[in-house]
């Protein structure tokens, strides 16, 4: 989903200056909601931004030109919350309610049994990556849970308003996974959604399971089993997010016998130890 990057022209030097993040977000959200003007405060000054006239007016007079550049978000799963505002999400809401009823919780989420129901409704198996992929597309925030707003807003922005469309979308997404970039961000998301609640790290065993499921087809010549063996027998500590994320790049860039590994490249200590342990085994 393209996002907008706003620039403001400095009246004296006529240079285009990038608006800082908070201002950018304010302007972007207003823009997406198709408002015509918005009042914002930068530091101690107040301004009125007029999207129609493409100008920003200061409280003490004076105006500056503004412009918007569309940028492609690096993360392909980032959502544009304001797209398709008029889509009718009734069907999806029904699906959600059904699944929520199955999850025995008071909060407005699908979890546990609800997830099973969701899978059966969508005719996907709980073992393969489809559920994870769906959660990724929704950008679900809490592990093994899907919230109401999350789901509805996400699916709406993707233009999915029926179960049928959702099913076909899922197949399409699976095919997209063959693209390295999409896969990378999907893999990174996997950590956040499959770790334990309230914990910033993932336990060894869970990590190994996930790796085996997600990466066995994508690892190429990388000795994935050796890696899993190392983590379970030698490393014995929980896996941090940084280590998880780095594994992908590590897989991509390492030679099959790990000969091109360099400690100075800033890999996490987990990788240093793995290479130390595995290299003799690979040589024999």
């Amino acid at each position, binding site marked *: 989903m393209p996002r907008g990057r706003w620039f403001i022209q400095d009246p004296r030097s006529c240079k285009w200056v990038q608006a800082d993040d908070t201002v950018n977000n304010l302007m972007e959200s207003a823009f997406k909601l198709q408002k015509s003007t918005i009042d914002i405060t930068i530091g101690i000054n107040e301004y009125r931004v007029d999207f129609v006239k493409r100008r920003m007016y200061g409280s003490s007079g004076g105006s500056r030109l503004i412009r918007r550049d569309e940028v492609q978000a*690096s993360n392909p799963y980032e959502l544009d919350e304001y797209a398709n505002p008029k889509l009718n999400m009734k069907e999806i809401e029904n699906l959600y309610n059904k699944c929520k009823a199955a999850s025995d919780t008071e909060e407005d989420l699908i979890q546990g049994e609800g997830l099973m129901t969701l899978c059966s409704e969508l005719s996907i198996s709980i073992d393969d990556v489809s559920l994870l992929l769906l959660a990724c597309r929704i950008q679900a925030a809490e592990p093994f849970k899907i919230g109401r707003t999350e789901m509805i807003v996400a699916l709406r922005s993707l233009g999915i308003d029926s179960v049928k469309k959702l099913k076909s979308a899922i197949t399409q997404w699976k095919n997209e996974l063959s693209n390295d970039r999409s896969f990378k961000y999907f893999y990174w998301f996997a950590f956040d959604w499959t770790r334990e609640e309230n914990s*910033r*790290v993932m336990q060894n065993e869970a990590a190994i399971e996930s790796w085996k499921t997600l990466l066995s087809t994508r690892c190429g010549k990388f000795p994935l089993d050796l890696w899993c063996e190392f983590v379970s027998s030698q490393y014995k500590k929980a896996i*941090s*997010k*940084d280590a998880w*994320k*780095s594994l992908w*790049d590590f897989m991509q860039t390492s030679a099959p016998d790990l000969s091109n590994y360099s*400690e*100075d*490249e*800033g890999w*996490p*200590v987990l990788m*240093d130890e793995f290479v130390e342990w595995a290299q003799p085994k690979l040589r024999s």
Partner: protein
Amino acid sequence: MYAYTVVYNVCTKHQSAKNGVTCAQELYRRLKEMIENHLRESVTDKVIHKTGDALLQEVHKEWKTHGLIVKWARFMFRYLDDYYTKSPQIDNLSTMMLKGFERAVFQRIKTSLRNVILTNIESERDGNTIDREVLRSAIWLFIDMGMETTEVYNQDFEKEFIKQSREYYQREAQQWQMEPGGQYTYLKKVEQKNMEEARRADSYLAPTTKGTLLKAIEQELLVTHMDKCLEDADAGTEALLNNERNDELGRMYRLFKNNGPGLERMADIVRKVIEREGKQINSKFSSGGTGETGEAASTTYIKSCLTLHDKYSQLFSTYLENNEQFLKARKTAYEVFVNPQQGDAWVLKQKTKGGKEGMDVITTSELLSTFIDGIMKKEMESEEALDNILDKCVTLFTYIHDKDLFQQFYMKQMSRRLMHNKNQHLLDQERTQISKLKMKMGSAYTSKLEGMLADQGVADNQNKHFKEYLADFEVKLPIDFTPLVLTTGFWPAFKHDTLAPPTGMNNCLSWFEKFYEKTTQSRKLTWIHSLGHASVVRKFPKGPREMSVTTYQACILVLFNETGSVVAKQAQETLKLPFEEIKRTFHSLAYGKFPVIKRADGNKALKQVKEGDEFIINDDFHANQRKFKIPAVVKQEREQIVDTNQEQRLHVIEACIVRIMKSRRVLSHSDLIAETIQQLSNLFSPEVRVIKKRIEDLIQRQYLERDEADRKQYRYLA
């Protein structure tokens, strides 16, 4: 005069030019012709058939004559010079005549002349004497023939000369190498020859040649034989150092001074020698070679390091002109043996105290700190001597890598010193030392130490006020009592005390607390009795004695006031101390050097103190002095200090990383590591692995993040 007038008349004749040639021109031409003819016929003949020395003589003579001719001609034909030759294409008279000489005579004799000169020089080198005057004029002939340039000289003479000199010295060098006396004499000869050649160049060569000549000789004599010279087993740099032949060393230095690689080699050898000697000192210490233990051994160790340093300082300044290279070499060598790593052969070890078998690794930081401690406790004879030795200690300090460890030890020991001894002299000494450290390390390093001193300084004043306060309330304290208030941040951390002091002491404590509350606001006082010391008097049957003891010991002794015998368990309950402490204190009182108490059951053999043991006062106690100090058993703190230090380092590294990232915003991995190491190099040298782990930890805590696109970059998260 007459000739001049004639010339004048000729030139000024306004005759119309015959064939476009004026009279002046004609005159000039004829003069030229005449000179040339003369030269060709008379001079050349005389000269050309001579060889050897005769040639030299002849040339010398003829050149002198020619000089005269030129002078007179110029005088007579001055008018020509003033007017006719002023036009640029026409040489003036002297030049013209010079050129004439050159064409007619010089060109034909120059090679033979040159050869003669060279032969002469060679014979002089071999030790014969020659006529320098003649030689000089012959050589200068070459220069003059160049007519203001040294081209002729360089081309025709100098090149050959240098070549010949090289060959000569090459041969000589070979010969000298064979001679007995080896490299000693070789170098002596080289130096000698150098001086000779310099003198020779001065006396009859052109000034420009001197430099080139000396350089050529240096190359032949020294550079080609450099390896042999420097590495020779008998007379190489190492041997000279070992045998302390400093003169020879000085000579070697002078000779190689201008030769870059040679000097480097020498410096390298010096470094190796110092390193080896240093490692020897280390091993001697570790093996307990001198038979001393504890403080004495560390004193010897540090003293030997300092002596070694001094020895080389002297050597460098007297013989080696304090050359940078050598200073650097010594520094590197010291850094190697003063900072042994875990697996090195020259690691410093000491017997584990407390009866355990095996050796503990001890660091130079600790030894140095203990040494300075020893010095401070002693009274030095003079300010200067003290200053001197402290300066040297600080120099040694700069070589240590673990400077933060040193700081810890120093702080601990200094705090003990300050608490036990309060004279002004000592305070001044401490101050000097701290200012020295401050100069090297900056104020951040010494701020705590200064804080400690400040506390000490304030204490006297405070005590005075306290006494006044007590006087106001007309309170007389049962015990003569002097408290010392320590500011928590400056002093090393002390364990909390659970001692319940006897009534007399309690009284004093509470009065002081009241006083302190009155004078300051919102400050909490916590008593650390483990640091206190007291003076206890007892009238033994053999005479009254005054004992200097720790507070704990005093409390236990006071217990005997009430009952004749004290059981260990009872002491523990009354005083509310952990049993370990009680055990130790009883031990020091009963089994130390001055056993003032003894076991009730009279069992002298048993040295362990157990809960049920009963003790009574030792009435047979006898000591020679009236006043003495009963030492308490000191726990082994080394491990504790080292451990705390390690922990602290982690925090320091983290703080450093965050600081760097905050200012740089985005930085690559290798750059970050390099920066961190560099910034911390003053305090200690962190390992790369440790830094890496810290970075990861910081990523986990979201102080940093990796850049999404380039995973080697780190970004600072606000």
